C-alpha cells in the first residue's frame, strides 16, 4: 500500500490531449474528409451542394460558401475553411482550388509521416517548393496591361467568363461577363470600391432579363397614401438626400406641455404643424424634385410633395442612400436649414419601373457615375442567390485583373507546368527534400485530375497526355490544359481560359501554409470547457426523459475523447 504513487493530475478532468504521430495522421484524415465533400464542385463540370441548415437552404458551387455552411468543428480541418474564406476575401475566386490543393499536399505527405519522417523536414521542403512555384507563376504570367480600352475590356471579359464557367449561370456567361466588366469599369479606377456595385435580386423572369443600371436602383420603399399621385419620371431632376424624419411628431421625446388656459390649445397644435410645414417648405424651396430620406417620410410629407409634383421616398437603406450620394453628387443632409444648391445632386433620368412583381426606382445617367447596380432575375430565390455569389466571384476577378493585370492559362495548364518545373528542380537537389518536393509537384496535379474526374473523363489518360505535352519542346507546351468539352487536351491560353495570376499565387501560398500548419501540430489539448454549455444543456434536457439522459452524457464524454 505504501508503494502506491500519487497520481499526478496535470489537466482538468475531461481534457482531451492526444499527441504524437497518431494525432498528426488523424488530423490529416480529417482534412481529407473535408476536401472530399467539396472536391466535386471544381471546374466547369463541377456539381452543386444543397446545404440545409437552421438558417435556410443554400444551393451553391462556391467553395467558400460551402465551407462556411458546413460548420466544421474539427480544429485541424477548420484551417481549411479558414484558407478558403481568406482566399475569398483576398481574390474572390479559387476558393475550391485552395482547399483541394491543401488537402492534396497533406495526402501526399501522409506516407512520409507514417514512415517516421520528421514533419519539420517536410515543412521546410514544402515551404521551399511553394516559393519556387510562386516565382514560376510570376515568370509564366502574361501581362495584359497597356492595351487600349477596347482590348483590355475584351481580355477582362474572358477572365470573368472563366470564373463563371463552373457556376449555375455558365449558360449565359458571355452575357454576364459583359455586365460584370461594364459594372467594374464604372468604378473609380484608383480604389475600385466594391461596395459601389449594388446587386438587387428580383425573383421571376429569365437570367437574360437581368440588367445593369448605370447608376443606382433600389426597390420602392414603403409608401403612404398620396405616393401614387407623385410623378414617377423626371429628366435632370435635382435630388435632395436627407437623414431626418419628415413626420408630424413630438419634437422632444420627454417634453410635456402644461396649459393653464384651454384657449391656448390651438396654438400648440399650430406650432407643431408649423414645424413640419417649415421643414417641408424648405425642401420644396430648394428646388429638389426628388427627396430621399433614410428615415421615414410620413403621409403628410408624402401628400405635401405630391401636391408639388415632387417624388419622395422614405426609409431608404443607408447603403442605397450612400450609393445615390456617390452617383449623383448629392450630400446627405441632416437638417433642412440653409439648403445649399451645391448639396443637391442630379442625374440624367429618374424613373420608377416595374421589375417582375416589384417596383424599382432607377437613377440613370449619373454625372459622377462611380457606381453601378446589377438587377438580377431568375426563377427561384436560391437560383438568384447563387447567381449573385457567382457574379461576386467574377467581379472580384475582374477587379483583381484590372489592378494587377497578368494572367495564366487555366484549366489545369499552369498546375501541370508548375508540377513539371518542380520535378525538374527536385532532380537537382541532394537529400531528403528531393522526395518531398517531388511529392509537392505530384500534389499539384490534383487540379487537372479533379477537373477530369468531375467531367467524367479518364483522368489517368488525360494526365499522361498532359505530362507528355508539357515535357515536349513545343514553345506553347506550357499552355496545355484539360479540355472538358471534348475530353482531350488543348492550348488553354489560345482558348481564352484564363485566370489572373494572383489567384494562383494566393492559392498556392495559402494551401502550402495550411498544409505546413497542420503538419506542425503534434498535440491537441482540448479544454472541455468550450463545449460544456452546449453539452450540459443537452444533457439537462435529456435527463427529463429518464434513462436516455445518461446515455447522452456518456456520448458527450466520448465525443470529447474522440477529438
Amino acid at each position, binding site marked *: 500500500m505504501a508503494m502506491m504513487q500519487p497520481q499526478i493530475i496535470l489537466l482538468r478532468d475531461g481534457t482531451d490531449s*492526444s499527441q504524437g504521430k*497518431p494525432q498528426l*495522421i*488523424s488530423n490529416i*484524415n*480529417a482534412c481529407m*474528409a473535408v476536401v472530399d*465533400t467539396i472536391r*466535386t464542385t471544381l471546374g466547369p*463540370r463541377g*456539381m452543386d*451542394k444543397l*446545404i*440545409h441548415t437552421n438558417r435556410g*437552404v443554400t*444551393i451553391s458551387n462556391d467553395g467558400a460558401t460551402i465551407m462556411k455552411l*458546413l*460548420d*466544421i*468543428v*474539427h480544429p485541424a480541418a477548420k484551417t481549411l475553411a479558414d484558407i478558403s474564406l481568406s482566399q475569398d476575401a483576398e481574390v474572390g475566386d479559387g476558393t475550391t482550388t485552395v482547399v483541394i490543393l491543401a488537402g492534396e499536399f497533406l495526402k501526399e505527405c501522409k506516407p512520409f509521416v507514417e514512415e517516421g519522417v520528421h514533419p519539420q523536414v517536410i515543412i521546410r521542403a514544402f515551404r521551399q517548393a511553394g516559393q519556387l512555384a510562386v516565382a514560376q507563376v510570376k515568370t509564366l504570367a502574361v501581362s495584359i496591361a497597356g492595351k487600349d480600352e477596347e482590348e483590355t475590356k475584351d481580355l477582362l471579359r474572358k477572365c470573368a467568363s472563366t470564373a463563371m464557367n463552373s457556376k*449555375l449561370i455558365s*449558360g449565359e456567361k458571355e452575357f454576364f461577363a459583359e455586365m460584370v466588366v461594364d459594372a467594374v469599369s464604372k468604378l473609380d479606377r484608383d480604389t475600385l470600391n466594391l461596395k459601389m456595385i449594388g446587386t438587387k435580386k428580383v*425573383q*421571376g*423572369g*429569365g*437570367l437574360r432579363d437581368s440588367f445593369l443600371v448605370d447608376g443606382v436602383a433600389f426597390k420602392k420603399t414603403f409608401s*403612404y*397614401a*398620396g*405616393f*401614387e*399621385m407623385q410623378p414617377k419620371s423626371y429628366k435632370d431632376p435635382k435630388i435632395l438626400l436627407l437623414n431626418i424624419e419628415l413626420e*408630424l*411628431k*413630438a419634437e422632444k421625446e420627454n*417634453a410635456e*406641455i*402644461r*396649459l*393653464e*388656459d*384651454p*384657449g391656448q390649445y*390651438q396654438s400648440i*397644435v399650430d*406650432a*407643431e404643424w408649423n414645424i413640419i410645414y417649415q421643414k417641408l417648405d424648405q425642401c420644396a424651396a430648394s428646388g429638389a424634385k426628388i427627396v430621399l430620406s433614410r428615415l421615414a417620410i410620413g*403621409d*403628410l410629407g408624402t*401628400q405635401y410633395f*405630391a*401636391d408639388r409634383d415632387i417624388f419622395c421616398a422614405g426609409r431608404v437603406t443607408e447603403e442605397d442612400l450612400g450609393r445615390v450620394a456617390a452617383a449623383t453628387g448629392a450630400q446627405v443632409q441632416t437638417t433642412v436649414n440653409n439648403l445649399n444648391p451645391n448639396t443637391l445632386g442630379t442625374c440624367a433620368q429618374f424613373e420608377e419601373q*416595374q421589375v*417582375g412583381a416589384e417596383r424599382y426606382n432607377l437613377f440613370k445617367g449619373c454625372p459622377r457615375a462611380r457606381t453601378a447596380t446589377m438587377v438580377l432575375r431568375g*426563377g*427561384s430565390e*436560391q437560383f438568384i442567390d447563387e447567381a449573385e455569389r457567382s457574379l461576386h466571384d467574377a467581379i472580384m476577378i475582374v477587379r483583381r485583373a484590372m489592378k494587377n493585370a497578368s494572367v495564366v492559362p487555366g484549366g489545369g495548364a499552369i498546375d501541370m507546368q508548375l508540377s513539371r518545373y518542380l520535378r525538374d528542380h527536385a532532380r537537382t537537389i541532394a537529400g531528403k527534400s528531393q522526395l518531398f518536393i517531388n511529392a509537392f509537384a505530384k500534389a499539384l496535379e490534383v487540379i487537372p485530375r479533379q477537373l477530369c474526374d468531375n467531367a467524367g473523363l479518364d483522368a489517368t489518360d488525360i494526365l499522361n497526355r498532359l505530362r507528355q505535352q508539357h515535357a515536349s519542346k513545343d514553345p506553347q507546351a506550357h499552355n496545355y490544359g484539360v479540355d472538358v468539352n471534348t475530353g482531350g487536351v488543348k492550348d488553354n491560353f489560345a482558348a481564352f481560359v484564363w485566370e489572373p495570376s494572383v489567384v494562383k499565387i494566393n492559392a498556392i501560398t495559402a494551401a502550402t501554409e495550411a498544409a505546413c500548419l497542420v503538419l506542425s501540430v503534434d498535440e491537441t489539448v482540448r479544454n472541455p470547457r468550450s463545449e460544456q454549455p452546449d453539452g450540459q444543456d443537452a444533457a439537462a434536457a435529456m435527463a427529463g426523459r429518464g434513462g436516455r439522459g445518461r446515455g447522452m452524457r456518456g456520448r458527450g464524454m466520448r465525443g470529447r475523447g*474522440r477529438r
Partner: protein
Amino acid sequence: MSLVFDEYGRPFIIIKEQDKKQRLKGLEAHKAHIQAAKAVARVLQSSLGPKGMDKMLQSPDGDVTITNDGATILEQMDVENQIGKLLVELSRSQDHEIGDGTTGVVVLAGALLEHAEGLLDRGIHPLWVAEGYELACKAATEGLDKIATKFEFNLDELEPLIQTCMTTLSSKIVGRCKRDMAEMCVKAVLAVADLERKDVNLDLIKVDGKVGGRLEDARLVKGIVLDKDMSHPQMPKELKDVRMAIVTCPFEPPKPKTKHKVDIDTVEKFETLRKNEQQYFAEMVKQCKDCGATLVICQWGFDDEANHLLLANELPAVRWVGGVEIELLAMATGARIVPRFSELTPEKLGKAGSVKEISFGTTKDRMLVIEGCPNSKAVTLFVRGGNKMILEETKRSLHDALCVARNLVRDNTIVYGGGSAEIAASLAVEAAAEKVAGIEQYAMRAFSDALDSVPLALAENSGLAPIESLTEAKARQLKEGNPHLGIDCNDVGTIDMKEQNVFESLSSKKQQLFLATQVCKMILKIDDVIQPAEYA
C-alpha cells in the same frame, strides 16, 4: 452522417452535430430529387387545360381553398421538400412575371426531369444533360419565334382580346360565364392601359367581391367600390355630381403629438374648454361646407358629436377608409388628400358623377359605389358568387385573365394554344437535335419528348386518347406545315387552334420554357445534400 475512423480506429467528428445530419450523394441524390419533383408535377398534371380538375386544399386553420391555379395550389400545399420548394418558386415566378401558365411550367419541369432520369440511368453526366437542355431550350424558343404571329387589336375591335381572355378563363370554375367575364377584364385593362407606352398598371384594377348573388351579377365599375357605408344611417343613399373632400385627420379636436396636460381648476375654465371643443366641431363642418364639398371621405373615425353635426348640416360622410382606397379615390376623382381641415380649398376637392350606397340581399352589408370619375384610371371588378370559395377562385381567375390581357397590350405577339405551340417547339427541337453531334443530341431529344407531355396531359384531362391525339396533331403539323394544330380539348371538331381561336402570348410560352429549363439545370447540378436528419 456516419462517423469517420482513421487508421488507428479512432473516430473523429468534423462537422458540428455530425450525427444529427444526413447526407445524400451522387446519383442517389439526383434520383431522390427527380422523384420529389415528379411527385409535385404529378399533383398539378390533372389541373392542366380547359378540362382540368380543381384541387381542394385545407389550410392548417381550417380554411378551404378550391382552385386549379397552379401557383395557388403549390403555395397552399406547403411543400416541405427542398426540391419541391424550388418548383413552388418556379410557379410563383411565372405568376409574378406573366400571371398565367403557372400549371404548365411545373408540368413541363417535371417532364424534363423525368426524361433526364432516363439519361442519367444510361450514365450520362448530369451536366451534359443540363447543357443539352439549354441548347434545346434555345432551339425551342427560336421555333416559337418563327411560328408566332402578330395579333392585331384596337380600341374599336376588342373581339380578339376577349377571345384570348376566354381561353384563360375556360379552364376555370367561371367557365360558365367566361364571355361576360372576359369582356369585363378586357375593358378593365384597356381602361387603365397606356397604349402609347404599352404599359398597364394592374394596381389600378381592384378586384373585389361579396358573397351572395350569382356569378352573372359580376360587373365592372368604372370607378371604385368601397366596402364602407355612410357614417350615419339617415344620410342620403345616393348622391349625384359629388364634390368630394378627402381628409386624413379625424373629426375630432386636434391633439398635439407632444405630451400635454390641461390644468383645469375653475368651472369657468371647464366651460371654455367645452365651448372650444364644440367650436372645433362646428368649425370643421363649416370648413368642409364652405369649400363646397358635398361628401367627406375620412381616413379616421368621427366623434358621435361630429356625426350628428354632419347630419344636421346635410353633409354626408364616410369614415375609416383605408389608405390604399384613399389613394385610389384621390387618383380617380382628381382630389388632393388634405391633412387638416384648415387647408381645404375648392381646388382640392375631387369630382364624381355619382356615389351610391348599395345593399345586398337581406344582409346588412352595404357598399359604396363611386362612379363617373373624371380621371377614371382606377376601375373595380366587382364579383358575386354563391360562397366564399367560389368567390376567391373567381377573383384568382380574373387575375389570370387580367394578366393575359395586360401581356397582350404589352407585346401583341402570340402563339396558338391547345398544345400546338408545344408540339411545334418539340418538332423544332427534334430537327435541331439532328444537327448536333455529341451527347447533347440525346438530351435534346429528351427535351423534345418532354415537351410532348403538355399536349399529352391536355388530351388526357379532356378524356381523349392521349397518344392518338398527340400523334395525329404532330403528324399533321409535319405534313401540312401548319403549326396551329393541337389538341381539341373542347370537342369542337377541329384541331386547328387558329379556327378555335385559342391562343396565348408568346412571352408567356417562352418564359415557361426558360424557367423550366433553368430549374432543371439547378436540380441536375446538385449532387450532394447535407441536411438535418429530421427533414429526411
